[in-house]
């Protein structure tokens, strides 16, 4: 289990993390979403042992991450800007990683060589950004981590390779019980792979649920009210409402059954509950904290 509890981090007085708490259950894939500057990368750097929190606790399996080499042997991370030594080849970096991670698997290294199809003797600097990202996945997955921390991991990868990479990660999760924490702006992609989601903003985790709970807790309804009801009644407590012709689209923070029950009072002509995408959940959750939706959509 990955756990952060009331983590505070100050950068020259600015509270980059302001009491952030999150819990990633063992064996789950946790998607951390949030706008730019929300603190996603900052909290991830706490989980990888780069930053030391000013307050709170950052733990994995109940152990503090900071200055804990034994624990860090089980953690592998791919930051958004992966570092390699200049002018190292893939093989050089493999040797370097192998010298640090006791569980580094050469067998897997050889297998993944076939998957990524990158010449291991090529200097990494001369590879494209996407290929460098593939090298990062290649080496990181060979470390056989119990905890995989990924910060914007598939940026720069083509759609086929994205699918390939996620397939490898999901394979580790299902076979080895690897716990994955992934931050991304690509909500549609997270929706496909995550079973838990946390939403961060202004250094705090606003909410974290399983994707199922999240979708159950918010509902989108398309409603046609009878003559005389031209606007969505205020007492419905809609998070968001829009109108196309006579069809109202209403987002409500409650289960579908409860929402239908409330709307039934107004005897709608048509009422249909639709599933919300993660992107919609993200937008409407953050809409509650004065977030400008137009700025966050990629």
């Amino acid at each position, binding site marked *: 289990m990955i756990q952060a509890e009331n983590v505070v981090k100050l950068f020259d007085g600015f509270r980059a993390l302001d009491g952030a708490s999150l819990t990633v259950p063992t064996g789950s894939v946790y998607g951390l979403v949030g706008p730019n500057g929300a603190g996603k990368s900052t909290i991830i750097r706490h989980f990888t*042992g780069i930053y030391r929190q000013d307050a709170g606790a950052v733990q994995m399996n109940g152990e503090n991450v900071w200055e804990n080499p034994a624990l860090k*042997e089980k953690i592998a991370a791919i930051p958004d800007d992966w570092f390699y030594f200049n002018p190292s080849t893939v093989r050089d970096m493999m040797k370097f990683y192998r*010298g640090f991670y006791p569980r580094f698997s050469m067998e897997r290294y050889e297998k993944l060589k076939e998957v990524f199809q990158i010449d291991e003797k090529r200097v990494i600097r001369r590879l494209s950004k996407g290929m460098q990202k593939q090298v990062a996945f290649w080496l990181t997955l060979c470390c056989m981590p119990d905890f995989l921390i990924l910060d914007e991991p598939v940026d720069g990868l083509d759609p086929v390779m994205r699918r390939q990479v996620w397939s490898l990660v999901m394979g580790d999760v299902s076979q080895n019980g690897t716990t994955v924490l992934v931050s991304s702006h690509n909500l549609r992609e997270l929706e496909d792979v995550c079973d838990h989601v946390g939403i961060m903003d202004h250094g705090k985790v606003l909410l974290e649920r399983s994707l199922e709970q999240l979708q159950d807790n918010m509902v989108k309804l398309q409603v046609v009210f009878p003559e005389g009801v031209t606007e969505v009644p205020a007492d419905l407590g809609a998070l968001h409402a829009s109108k196309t012709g006579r069809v109202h689209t209403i987002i409500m923070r409650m289960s579908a059954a409860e929402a239908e029950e409330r709307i039934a009072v107004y005897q709608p002509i048509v009422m249909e509950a639709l599933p919300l995408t993660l992107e919609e959940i993200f937008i409407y959750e953050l809409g509650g904290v004065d977030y400008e939706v137009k700025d966050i959509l990629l």
Partner: protein
Amino acid sequence: MKLKTSFFNPTLYRKNLTRFWPLWGLTSFFGALIPISGIMMCLNGDLKTTALEFKEVYYNAIVYFAPVVLLCYCILCAMAVWSYLYNARSVGMMHTLPISREGLFVTNFLSGLTMVAIPWAVTALFCVILSIVAKSFSAGPLFVTILCVAGEGLFYFSSATAAAFITGNVFALPLLYFLFHFLAPLLEALIGTLSSNLIFGLSHIYTGVADWLSPTVYIIKNVKINRTYTQIPVPGQPNITESVLASVTLEKGWLIAVYALVGLALLGVAYMLYRYRKSECAGEVIAMGWGRPVFRYGIAALLALGGGQLLYIIIFNSFDLDQDPYRILPLIFCMLIAGLIGYYGASMLLAKTLRVFKGSQRGAAIVAAGCVIACCVVGFDMLGVAKRVPSADSVKYVRLYAANNTYYLFPDEDADVLEELRDVHKAIIAEKNYAQKMMNARTIEDSGDFEKSTYVTFRVTYLLKNGLNVDRNYFLYLTKDRMEEPGTYDNALDRFINSTEMKLRRLRFDDPRFIIENGNINIQKRDDGFEFSSRELSEVLAAIADDAKAGTWGQYDWFDEDNTTYAVSMFFWYSINDVEELASRGMDNITVYLRPGMTNTINCLKKMGYLEDGDLVTQAEMQKIWEERDRMMKYPPDMAGVELDAATLEPIDSPSETIPPEAESVTPETAPEGETVTPQPAPVTEPVTNPGAANNNPNSAPQTPAESSAASSMGS
């Protein structure tokens, strides 16, 4: 590969060495070139050397070569191995790895130290090969050298490592490192310049009191190589000997061990800094929060001191601002400007933006207040430095430079004279304003009649029993009128210098601390000179001492107007021993001009055969003889009244061309350290080895009276 310990990671160690091999590889190559060249010369038979000479070379490497090379090379190694700290990506990767900060610190430090050691090991290996080829191998000196260089390497690399953790910017690292290594001498120089320019009498002499904080300077200045030589006959020429190196020893080599221990302490400091260093400070000029105000105000102070004085020189130096407030006010202005530039410049570097002015008023006010306070404290002498005259009982001894002579006074033996000296010093301080005003007038023409006035240097150094020095240097304006007027410093100084006691002290007769080494006599009329034997030296000095006691030695001529002395001068060299501080000055000398009335001396010289009655012409008479000679040279009797073509004239030797080298070297030896003194002309015009060896060159020009009198020594 299972990690056995978290304190060392062989993979990282190897990676560092393989990543930065060009650095240590190239240095090793250049280091090996010198011994390789020696090996080649040896093999060709061009180089023959002894084990002692090797030892000397090794010790030279310890004292001079290694500190300078290591100072520069260690910072390059530190920049290499700690480079990951200065980039957010690399620091992120390294700190994500399963290794503790201790492990990273130890592994990176050891790999850096290895990079420092490899070139020295390679060079040492080739030196051993060279010594074996030259059949001069000696393990002892080599071992000492390895130990010393290892100690120096440890110190320099540890200091570079400590500096590496203070900054988060790779370009700031070498700047900080060199600043730390030379901050103490720099500060002493800047504060010394400021104080000496503002405080009356304070000398601007670099004392090196804080040199120990600058190890490169300190090691080079204090670790000494002592050599002794023996004279051995040249093979096949039994009457000729040559100097051969007999022994080489290293003095104060333990200082290197002390610095090595300091290096270990710095290593501890560096580790503590790393433990608490935040990864997010990569890219910052100063990584530690507490270091930022230190950097900001430190740069402001340095620039205020250095840049402020430079600005003052550029803008205001051409003005004759001789009253204190008018010197201090522009200086405050200049320091303020420079200090604020430093403060805001440092703030911009720290903030990495030019927009640092908002909300900076408090810091700027502190800098401004600091400049004003520093200038006022120093400029108005609020600490009473200018007025300080040490009490006689606190003094170990006094060194005085006045009237172109150096005197040493010891409280136990010279209590009365020392008290008189203190009175003279107090008299100068009492007339501070007058003295400063006349000093700043700069030229005699500006301040009075040059025939009745002069400028003299008066420098007194009290070496106190507590080990400190009180050193004052005055450039005094003297006038004949004030010299007659009691209560003036002119009068006090003249009475003091021309007292019989001071004359005897100047002569150092019967003073075991001063050993007469040699002396000579110059007779201007004959244009000739002779060197005294050691027995003659004692007799001549005794005769001069008798004349001094009888009051016939004469008075020191402050105004260079006395042409009544004979055109005969004597020059004596002393070596100094017995007192450690004095011994450091090595040699001293005195010039004595013969004058009518010095019957003891004249008789002594006549008895020795150096002097004849015909030589006893006064300077005034000598002047006429020169003029006559000059006229004869230009217009010989047979050509009188005929204008000669310049081309037909014989060239006339310049007097300066006949001054022997030892005479030319008089001034720097006698003058106090760091002081500019009016050059003294040579007392003899040619080096002479035996009496009677007259100069037969009819064309050689004698000294002019002006040159002779410029020596201004006692008895002129």
